[in-house]
């Protein structure tokens, strides 16, 4: 859908003290704006700013919000890729704004920033995360054991058994994977990669005893079989989780019933 573009001529901010020796460049941020209190239509809006190319896209968004337009709205917290608040579509690819440096995304051209896809946009870059977290909750994302008498000390687990599910413990629930998945875009009922990753984390934990139940949940018609292995999720994951591989392992476990 073609949308009108607003122009903002003024450039933001002075160089930060302490970065005096840094080569500041002028970049254009082209941001997808939506505010139902203002208009029913989303529009692209351009902002020009001076920025050190070693800074993060999040720093650029902050410069805009703090110095140019306070109405620009996005979620963020830790600013170093741990909290999962600021997944967004940057130059057409899902990334965390705080883990993406300006220099790595071709600042010669306008940098496009949009909300992640497949979830309802609430304002600017903020989307409704509820369906995403509902899918997560639906896979029973917690350790289930049938211990009748709890051990007094820790359960034992070999380093190899611990390693078996290490990759999927890294998930920060940012939704970069799920919202990069074409199946999820077309059908919001699909559990999506993140929920499957979090089911994997327990199915392959040697201490857990509810693997069968979780597999049955994912055997549903909105479950793992919808995955078309396009690898978008693996490319999108800011934590480097091999998401598609985890989904394949869950599929295999459903066939072999061994995990």
């Amino acid at each position, binding site marked *: 859908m073609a949308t009108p573009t607003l122009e903002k001529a003024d450039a933001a901010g002075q160089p930060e003290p302490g970065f005096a020796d840094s080569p500041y460049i002028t970049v254009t941020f082209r941001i997808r704006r939506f505010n139902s209190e203002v208009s029913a239509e989303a529009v692209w809006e351009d902002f020009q700013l001076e920025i050190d190319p070693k800074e993060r896209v999040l720093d650029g968004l902050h410069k805009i919000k*703090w110095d140019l337009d306070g109405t620009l*709205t996005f979620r963020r917290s*830790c600013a170093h890729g741990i909290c999962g608040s600021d997944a967004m579509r940057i130059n057409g690819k899902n990334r965390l704004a705080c883990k993406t440096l300006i220099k790595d995304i071709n600042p010669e051209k306008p940098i496009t920033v949009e909300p992640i896809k497949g979830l309802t946009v609430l304002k600017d870059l903020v989307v409704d995360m509820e369906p995403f977290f509902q899918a997560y909750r639906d896979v029973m994302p917690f*350790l289930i054991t049938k211990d009748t008498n709890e*051990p007094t000390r*820790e359960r034992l687990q070999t380093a190899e058994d*611990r390693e078996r599910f290490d990759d999927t413990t890294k*998930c920060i629930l940012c939704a970069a994977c799920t919202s990069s998945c074409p199946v999820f875009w077309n059908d919001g009922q699909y559990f999506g990669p993140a929920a499957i990753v979090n089911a994997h984390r327990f199915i392959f*934990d040697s201490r857990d005893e509810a693997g069968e139940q979780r597999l049955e949940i994912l055997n549903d018609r909105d479950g793992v079989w919808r995955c078309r292995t396009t690898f978008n999720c693996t490319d999108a994951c800011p934590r480097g989780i091999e998401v598609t591989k985890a989904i394949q392992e869950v599929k295999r476990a459903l066939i072999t019933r061994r995990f």
Partner: protein
Amino acid sequence: MKIHKYDTVIVGAGGAGMRAAIESTKRSRTAVLTKLYPTRSHTGAAQGGMAAALANVEEDNWEWHTFDTVKGGDYLVDQDAAEILAKEAIDSVLDLEKMGLPFNRTPNGTIDQRRFGGHSRNHGEAPVRRSCYAADRTGHMILQTLYQNCVKEGVEFFNEFYVLDQLITEVDGVKKSAGVVAYELATGEIHVFQAKAVIYASGGCGKFFKVTSNAHTLTGDGQAAVYRRGLPLEDMEFFQFHPTGIWRMGILLTEGARGEGGILRNKDGERFMEKYAPVMKDLASRDVVSRSIYTEIREGRGCGPEGDHVYLDLTHLPPEQLDAKLPDITEFARTYLGIEPYTDPIPIQPTAHYAMGGIPTNVEGEVLSDNTTVVPGLYAAGEVACVSVHGANRLGTNSLLDINVFGRRAGIAAAEYSQKADFVELPENPAELVISQVEALRSATGTERVAVLRRELQETMDANVMVFRTEQTIKTAVEKIAELRERYKNVSIQDKGRRFNTDLLEAVELGNLLDLAEVMAVSALARKESRGGHYREDYPNRDDVNFMRHTMAYREVGDDGTESIRLDYKPVVQTRYQPMERKY
């Protein structure tokens, strides 16, 4: 305006809040109000581990851990609280394992442990392996595990609800907690939560510094809400500067890097910590290491063209060890600095990290309105609180421990209280203050910008009340903060809307930071000694005769409406240990 009624309300959904919620939900009807989605909380950024004398890999016991905590806190620690912390540490770790936390394991399958700053065998003989960990993602695993168990227990969350006011009603001359007032980010609607018990677990306030490991959202909202209602804040002058933040950015690089064998070096390649801490070396307590780094920099041995940082050297460690034990921080170095830690040292500088002070509580998490009086129905736990287990300087791995031990205790105590107590009547027009504050900001036409004032605040705090302080620098900060508070009255925002108005909330958060920065600076000015994280160049020694006591800061409002801070003091609880000179 909507009114809700719950037995127990928890403010904040980081480690302390969720650990409390797991207990409280089992016992009482509980609501958790959180300004972030729970898994966004900054507990997730903690890296290195959680201390507990499990003795899985070498001899250890809770008494050694208690001693290290008291010594680490430069004897300002309340020793009864420290003993509880160290004793209950063991079950806290085992509880988390049973909840599913994927700890690293030893070859025989037990929880693995590693060294950390200030943790020693037999009262300082040598470093001990006490930190239970999951690679360098221990906080992430704790946050995820607690959230998973909240899902399991069916904890009721109100996500993106900002608590802006604490309601207090006087009943028969006793001030009691009546509930809280919250602002819903999605709609701009004001909600009053009437509750028999309220637990604050809203985290720290490090964002008043510029170079900090803290998230943008750590703005001291809980501390500010109770302080404005006349309750005291304890030991706010004690702030921890973590030795190894990424140069200029402040992003945390875990002490676990030194626990795994990493070494700090100056521009000559010298392992300078050998001079300052001959026994513990790079694993001395954080205040000692941060001062040593700045001493090196001041004496001209800093690295880089401006000589303004030192190196964290991991190059002698095998790449497999870095990949297995320190995967995230090595990734940070690659992402943000373009440095390969296998082959190159990482430029670091101390970064504002942790508030030792906060809302005073007893060991059950009950909030105090003076040195001894409990506010019925009001609780606090975690970084927002001051029990005080950290005293003048917190040991690494003791904060993940604190949130679990005292989060659990506060959750149980609050829920048990709300089972036997009645609701306290809400004050008349309970949301009045919040509505007027929010409406004033929405309609303000002043010329000051939030971002400008915040930047100036952060710069003055970095320049004047960081690792080294003097009467003159602190006074400069006090004056600057007073000026900024005046200018804040003339602040305006651009977003006048109701939906997701983060512009408005940043203005509210700045107000909180300004209040807390003032308390911190005024408390620091009055403490004419050096202890733990508070180092006064004009008073370089610890003064146990005059200052072996906690600071209690109260907001006072005069008849003419002028605000001021009154300082009082509270004795330190001493049980087993007499103060000694602190050497590492």
